[in-house]
């Protein structure tokens, strides 16, 4: 099971708690985690990544295991600690705007 932490503004959109648990088939990557997240919470479509291109929105960041994974290719396997549920995959709204 994969743990995902949402930014607070998206919790209300999804009608979900901040931390979610998702079943994600291997390989566990940014793309497969986000696919599973959007399948379970369709209202999140378009809020984290573009509907069509699936590119991350510019002011959204991904972290896990104290690493910024935002610029990793979306099909790169996520760290083992995320795959095993020891560490969450964090979706973060960037600190921006003053």
């Amino acid at each position, binding site marked *: 099971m994969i743990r995902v932490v949402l930014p607070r*503004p998206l919790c209300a959109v999804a009608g979900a708690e901040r931390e979610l648990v998702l079943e994600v088939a291997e390989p566990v990557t940014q793309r497969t985690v986000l696919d599973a997240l959007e399948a379970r919470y369709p209202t999140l479509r378009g809020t984290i990544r573009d509907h*069509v291109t699936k590119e991350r929105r510019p002011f959204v960041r991904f972290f896990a295991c104290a690493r910024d994974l935002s610029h990793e290719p979306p099909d790169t396997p996520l760290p083992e600690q995320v795959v095993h549920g020891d560490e969450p995959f964090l979706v973060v709204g960037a600190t921006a705007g003053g």
Partner: protein
Amino acid sequence: MSGVRLLVGTRKGAFVLTADGRRTKWSVDGPHFPGWEIYHVKGSPADPDRLYASQSSGWFGQLIQRSDDGGKSWEAVGNEFTYEGEAGTHQWYDGTPHPWEFKRVWHLEPSPGDPDTVWAGVEDAALFRSTDGGTTWQELSGLRGHGSGPSWAPGAGGMCLHTILPDPVDSARMFIAISAAGAFRTDDGGETWKPINRGLRSEHIPDPEAEVGHCVHRLAMHPSRPEVLFMQKHWDVMRTDDAGDNWREVSGNLPTDFGFAIDVHAHEPDTVYVVPIKSDAEHFPLDGKLRVYRSRTGGEEWEPLTKGLPQSDCYVNVLRDAMSVDTLDACGIYFGTTGGQVYASADAGDSWTTVVRDLPAVLSVEAQTLP
């Protein structure tokens, strides 16, 4: 007893303000969607409890919310706004071509007759329609595909389609306006569009016959007379009597003819309201006095309405979608400011009261008259 519901969009959420027909005591419900920019909330004329709201953020993009109980509860519906075909380019601020990019929905216009049909005016400028209550959206690409599209350019607030006026008599006809391309009309249900900007004069456009390029801020229409439109342009208040084929200036004795909001009295087609703003560089009222101006002659002759409005040290703005009228016998008129105040008049503008004074900056106000 009849009542009024005001749907208020702000920089940090939506608010629903309600009063009975006397319009003296208001209740404030909100914020809905706290922290999000709510550019516009509007109810269906066919079902007043069906509301649509445009919710957006620089971080998380665009959402569309729908309510079926007058704003008590909301459901996120479809938010995929994909331009038809090749997106193409428009003109950027420096005159270079710039790809069309969806940014947000500025205005939602529910159909007069069908609660499930709603149009969305978006930035970068395009018109979308949903016929399933906002679940899916299709672009009416004949507008953006008009030959002039590559020469459209953004105004200071972005290249937004901000006004959508369906003709209440002819369902195939609709008017829209874009900053800073101008006004357009379709006579065939949105398949094809023509620019309707003849007679507009803009300092930054040397060609007086320019088909597009005008910074139209807002259009207003009285439903009994859809061929007559009033326009608040960047500078100049304008009027057409032939559905936009020809415009003439009716700024008359206004102290400044820059502004954003314009609206028409619910029962008097020649009674028009504007809020003059000092200039495009100074987005606040002249001399720090917040004055609505009313013309009872369809323009040219204007009178200031000040009773109950701040007449010193007031430096707020009133944005293009932030004025609305109800349809009660004594027409009510409402507007919101970037300072967070919402003002109401239950006597067609003769006097004003403050409904609420400390909201986030108000982006839009829509009045619903309830049975």
